[in-house]
């Protein structure tokens, strides 16, 4: 069994690839929330207070040990003054079914984007794109 090459490990079983996709989605969502918290200078304790939940709840949701419901995600976005957006997409694949780097598993998967609720126009503003 290959431990140390990601693409080999993913190719070993569809169950491993499925679990990896779950963990990747959790990271997509939670790291986007962390990026927004960093941007606004908000701590976990601040977010917990805004949500009316315990700090432990926020810790568990953000580290993936507690399943985040879509309602909780919406509440977190609302508490941060942003909106969570998502789309289903297919990452670019190489001829062998992998991306160019050979490290990313095939899709479809969800992608999240944090959008500014206070944008002046009716279109949502992609904050990640603005910051990059």
């Amino acid at each position, binding site marked *: 069994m290959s431990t140390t090459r*990601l693409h080999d*490990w993913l190719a070993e079983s569809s169950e491993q690839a499925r679990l990896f996709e779950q*963990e990747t989605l*959790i990271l997509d969502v939670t790291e986007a929330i962390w990026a927004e918290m960093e941007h606004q200078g908000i701590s976990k304790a601040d977010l917990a207070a805004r949500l009316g939940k315990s700090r432990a709840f926020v810790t568990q949701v953000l580290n993936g040990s507690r399943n985040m419901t879509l309602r909780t995600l919406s509440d977190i976005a609302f508490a941060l003054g942003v909106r969570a957006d998502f789309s289903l997409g297919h990452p670019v694949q190489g001829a062998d079914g992998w991306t160019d780097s050979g*490290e990313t598993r095939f899709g479809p998967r969800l992608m999240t984007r944090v959008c500014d609720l206070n944008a002046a126009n009716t279109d949502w503003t992609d904050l990640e794109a603005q910051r990059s």
Partner: protein
Amino acid sequence: MNMDVFARGAALRVLVTPEGSESWTEAERHVPPNKEACKAQLRARLQRLSEQGRLRNPDLMNSEGEGIHAVKTNCGLRAYGWFGSGPNGGKAFCIGHVAMKKQQKADSRDLKRVKRVRERFGG
């Protein structure tokens, strides 16, 4: 001394030393059967590290002092390593040791082990 390339991301490469590889296989033998997702969790977090150069959530990555960092999972599986450059240059996170941690605090033997590996690689 060769290191395996675990993942190549936009920010850095995650490399695995032979000691890291061996201890990784051993550590995963101690992952409880109902925590199989933990193995995928460690890999997803390492891949994200290669893409972003860091993990924003401080609960997922700790500094253990003296330049050693731990990428953590929710079941106790941890990858210990250091930031440096790969054999052909470029930024890298080098995994020197992987352990299934039983208590909250890092085991000093695990930290000693990864420091020894780092010395061998000139880090």
